């Protein structure tokens, strides 16, 4: 159980599963940098957040609600939570908006699952599924919160906490995904991954000075 002061932003879970260094740059170094993809996401979210509460075909839709879990140590805000009637109870169904398309890994699913785990703790309910709406393909992917996804999310939340507690930003590992990352220019993975020796660079400058 975490206490109020230790709660970290839910977004970290997704960032961590994408790249540990990106997560550290964001949450330890407090850096942020947009690119085309993140800007597109912001525009899309602005649209998703126009009205706070809506009723549609028996479903109550609430946006921008606070999410919190002391067990995961996370806090954040939802995009959209639909409340589906089940008997005389309203069961929350989190929906996350993404501007891109569905990915082969679990990056988006763990973020949604973390939201569901928060809602479960807050409302004392069990949530079986939620959905991710992908703007590019305009399809809605149903996500089932099964045991393995819950465990993965829980482990990521723990790792996120220990990363932030360590106060150390891991060194970059240059890979294909760096190409699409909005932090590339802050992170400079190509330069720092190679463990380039600056002392050698300095020595070269000194040695290159020639008499004229």
């Amino acid at each position, binding site marked *: 159980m975490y206490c109020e002061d230790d709660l970290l932003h839910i977004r970290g879970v997704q960032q961590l599963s994408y790249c540990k260094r990106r997560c550290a740059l964001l949450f330890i*170094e*407090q850096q942020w940098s947009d690119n085309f993809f993140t800007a597109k996401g912001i525009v899309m979210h602005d649209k998703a957040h126009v009205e706070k509460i809506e009723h549609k075909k028996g479903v109550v839709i609430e946006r921008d609600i606070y999410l919190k879990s002391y067990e995961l140590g996370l806090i954040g805000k939802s995009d959209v939570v639909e409340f589906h009637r089940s008997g005389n109870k309203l069961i929350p169904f989190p929906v996350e908006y993404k501007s891109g398309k569905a990915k082969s890994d679990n990056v988006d699913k763990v973020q949604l699952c973390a939201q569901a785990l928060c809602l479960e703790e807050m409302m004392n309910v069990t949530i079986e599924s939620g959905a991710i709406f992908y703007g590019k393909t305009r399809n809605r992917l149903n996500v089932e919160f099964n045991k393995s996804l819950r465990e993965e999310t829980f482990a990521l939340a723990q790792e996120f906490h220990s990363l932030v507690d360590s*106060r150390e930003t891991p060194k970059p590992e240059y890979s294909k995904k760096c190409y699409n990352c909005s932090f590339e*220019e802050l992170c400079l993975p190509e330069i720092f991954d190679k463990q380039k*020796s600056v002392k050698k*660079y*300095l020595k070269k400058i000194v040695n290159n*000075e020639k008499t*004229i």
Partner: protein
Amino acid sequence: MKKLFSTLYVSTQGAYISKERENIVVSLQSKELFRAPVHLINSVVCFGNIMCSPFLLGLCAENNASVSYFTEYGRFIAKVQSPVSGNVLLRKQQYKYSDDGKFCLETAQSVLLGKLSNSRTVINRALRDHEDKISDSDKLKQVSDGLRRAIANVFNAENVDVLRGMEGDAAVAYFSVFNKLILNHKEEFFMPGRNRRPPKDRVNCLLSFVYTLLVHDVSSALEGVGLDPQVGFLHKDRPGRPSLSLDIMEEFRSVIADRLVLTLINLSQVNANGFSESPSGGVIMDDENRKIVIDAYRKRKEEEIFHPFFKENIHIGLLYHAQALLFARYIRGDIDAYPPFIWK
């Protein structure tokens, strides 16, 4: 690299800067002079009697653009910016290191290497390109050779005080031949040596003003990556002095500022009549010349230059950010030394 944003310099006395939707609008007596969307601008710099609406300040803060005020003569007054950003842990590490003798020495060695190497290149380039027009080129060669010897000695220095002494000697030698790099209007543009507060001749007046623009940009770049511009390593801490900015600025003085001043004089872009001497002996330049200098500096920042550490071309305006970023990485221990920008 990061995108090159523009700095908006406003020096028209009595101008009013306001917000219109997402735009920065500069007007004079209700007549619009300039307009640009805020997301293209990363800082607004006002000289003298310029008014800014509170909503403009809000718009700039929201978009991470700072608004700075200077006197007409380039003395810094104040700066409005959004809350301090970046990593407090990085700043704490910077403070710790500033008390660490070995770290200070190694940092100061890098900083001085950058300064000496770039000063030497300015002289060598002049010799290479204009030897026929330079009187007494032997003197220049002598200074260049002295700088070469100093460069060879930088890493033998045992403490920062030795480096400060080397820096002082190098600066005196460099400025002793600075007049020889002035190829036109030698009568009007002549300096007996570096002087400031107040500058006593036109050349020093130009240099001081361009250094002001430079220190402002370097400070913004350092703040932008979360460093404290006041805690330096070669320059001693003194309340109010941006010591780290002065450290990082050393490598840029000759290649950016001095060369800009030389170009302005040698290509007859500044007007020698646009300078006046105050009764106390200080030399000040007029509005017209100030505009010419700012404009030339702004254009210079849009040019590209090869960065030998990144091994790629980079806008001069982004050099400060690039060096600030490298410095932050150095403080964090990602790299084993600070690599200054070297111009060849």
